[in-house]
């Protein structure tokens, strides 16, 4: 099956990479020794593009984001290279990073209640971004904050500025986070499971909002999620991670309609859908997600893979190009649907 990308309404982005990640390795020192959460991840994000990173717990998807943002805990270290707008940002000092974070790169988290400061009003938190990064005067900053709340469809934005996070509903708090992320019109917005904690009707609103804001500002987005439905609706390109590595990447339609890695295919099949056939059992993936502290020597998916061969258990298969813009880390030649 060939999947054409020449569909109307599908943006391809102009081909200038905004972010280039090369051979990123992130390790954590633990009492039981060093644990690798990210094992040599390389990818790029073009301007105006939305990239989805999909994976289960322990796949390393969140740690990729934390490494890019310089937000690893003290026991974590990264090697490799992360270039933002042609500048190396991996290993940058906190002071230098703070000039980029918040203004040119912003992050939104899964749980807005823990990401927002409970002691500060919404207005204080929003205006802080502007006064700190752009030296805006307080009155102007307040007006801009009110405007951005309006843009994310918060009713009575003037009143909300004086409220504390706990006075808002979950959906409203997540909208405040997006507002905060969008406030300085960043070039790159990094969203870690931004709708996982929300109800489905609110999730749909928040996803619409992200797409809408992106259409206005041209921001690039990296969206990390375990929900393949969210990726299907929002992303241009998808990376599937397993055991700290990218196992497959490609344009969104290729990944969904012609998955080439056994894990991608199994993941798509094992997800119950509103339109799936209910006869028979739901296809499953045997076994458990890998334990990062005890990785098998070969392919991390080998113990659960239906197509495993001896070769898979000996060495990690490299990520190789299988078509322009498509790559997979699997020894199999071609996976037929």
């Amino acid at each position, binding site marked *: 099956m060939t999947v054409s990308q020449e569909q109307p309404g599908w943006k391809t982005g102009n081909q200038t990479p905004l972010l280039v990640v090369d051979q990123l390795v992130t390790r954590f020192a633990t009492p039981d020794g060093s644990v690798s959460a990210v094992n040599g991840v390389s990818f790029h994000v073009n301007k105006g593009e939305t990239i989805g990173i999909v994976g289960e717990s322990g796949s390393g998807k969140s740690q990729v984001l934390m490494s890019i943002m310089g937000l690893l805990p003290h026991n974590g270290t990264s090697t490799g290279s992360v270039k933002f707008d042609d500048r190396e940002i991996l290993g940058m000092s906190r002071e230098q990073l703070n000039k980029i974070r918040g203004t040119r790169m912003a992050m939104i988290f899964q749980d807005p209640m823990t990401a927002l400061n409970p002691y500060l009003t919404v207005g204080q938190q929003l205006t802080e971004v502007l006064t700190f990064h752009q030296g805006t005067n307080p009155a102007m900053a307040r007006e801009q904050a009110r405007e951005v709340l309006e843009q994310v469809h918060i009713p009575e934005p003037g009143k909300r500025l004086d409220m504390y996070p706990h006075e808002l509903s979950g959906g409203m708090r997540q909208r405040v986070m997006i507002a905060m992320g969008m406030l300085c019109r960043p070039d790159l917005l990094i969203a870690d499971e931004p709708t996982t904690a929300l109800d489905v009707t609110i999730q749909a*609103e928040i996803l619409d909002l992200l797409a809408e804001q992106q259409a206005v500002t041209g921001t690039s987005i990296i969206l990390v999620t375990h929900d393949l439905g969210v990726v299907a609706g929002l992303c241009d390109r998808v990376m599937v991670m397993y055991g700290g590595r990218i196992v497959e990447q490609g344009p969104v339609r290729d990944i969904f309609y012609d998955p080439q890695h056994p894990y991608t295919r199994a993941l798509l099949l*094992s997800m119950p859908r509103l339109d799936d056939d209910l006869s028979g059992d739901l296809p499953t993936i045997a076994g458990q997600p890998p334990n990062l502290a005890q990785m098998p020597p070969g392919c991390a998916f080998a113990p659960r893979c239906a197509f495993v061969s001896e070769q898979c258990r000996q060495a990690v298969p490299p990520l190789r190009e299988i078509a322009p813009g498509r790559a997979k880390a699997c020894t199999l030649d071609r996976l037929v649907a």
Partner: protein
Amino acid sequence: MSLSSSSPLLSVRNLKVHFPVKNDLFAEKRVVKAVDGVSFDLYPGETLGIVGESGCGKSTLGRAVLKLIPSSAGTVVWLGRPLEDASKSALRSLRREMQIIFQDPLAALDPRMTVGAIVAEPLDTFEPGMAEQDKRARVVEAMERVGLPSHLINRYPHEFSGGQCQRIGIARALILKPKLLVCDEPVSALDVSIQAQIINLLKRLQTEENLALIFISHNLSVVRRISDRVMVLYLGKIAELAERDEIYRNPRHPYTQALLSAVPIADPDKERAKKRVSLTGDLPSPINPPSGCVFRTRCPIVIEKCQSVVPVLEPVTDSHTVSCHRWREAIQLLME
């Protein structure tokens, strides 16, 4: 499945659970109406899915049915016997026939007990005289039934993954061979690949043991997989109740339609072409629910009548009821 021939396992009528809210001195007494007048029957071997968003009362309903929390009004009849009248000891012995599993499987297990001891606990409670040897055989059998190798019997919960912990919870719940299992978001904390394993397991056990399930979840795709009938709850009240295929193909309540249309489909072309019924605003406070129809503050097709007249559950077909003044025209209106 034809269910009407047998008599119900469980009959719930006009069940209400109201929690008092801490009052200011002299202030009017206020309550949260977590469950507010819910009625349904559950037949042996049937799965009733209960869906709704956070705060709709679905977990409270599951617990109230088991009498794990007291109800404020209404009746729960178990095999023809009203549980309201049952003495404490009678209720206790009935409990062996009704069990529950929870969302966070690790939190539901005592970290200081071995898997064997956890799974055996219901036997210790209800069959205290059982010989150690017999008990062990029962535990091994229960573990194997849920796909846990019996050589893990002396391990502790922290040594297991989330999916395996949920299996331990299921083994414990089923060791007494109950007739009803309440599943409160049993797969929500699990990875997609593990979720499918647990769903299949529950379906298999249900068929093998003719077990009735009340399956509570916010995930409509998961509920569709496992349920025979589905109840949609909103602010403590039933919005719609119908057989599975009927509710997913022919939803009548605007809230059901909004919920279904909001579920992201893992298919880029379908997902991007999809028409969505959007709701305005957030869930109102259950302390001060809207007058008339509780859904009216978010309903896209609200009319004046909704403000003043509380809708009752009306039959669409024999097995499909809906609580909306405009259910007859809702689909056309929302598609415009």
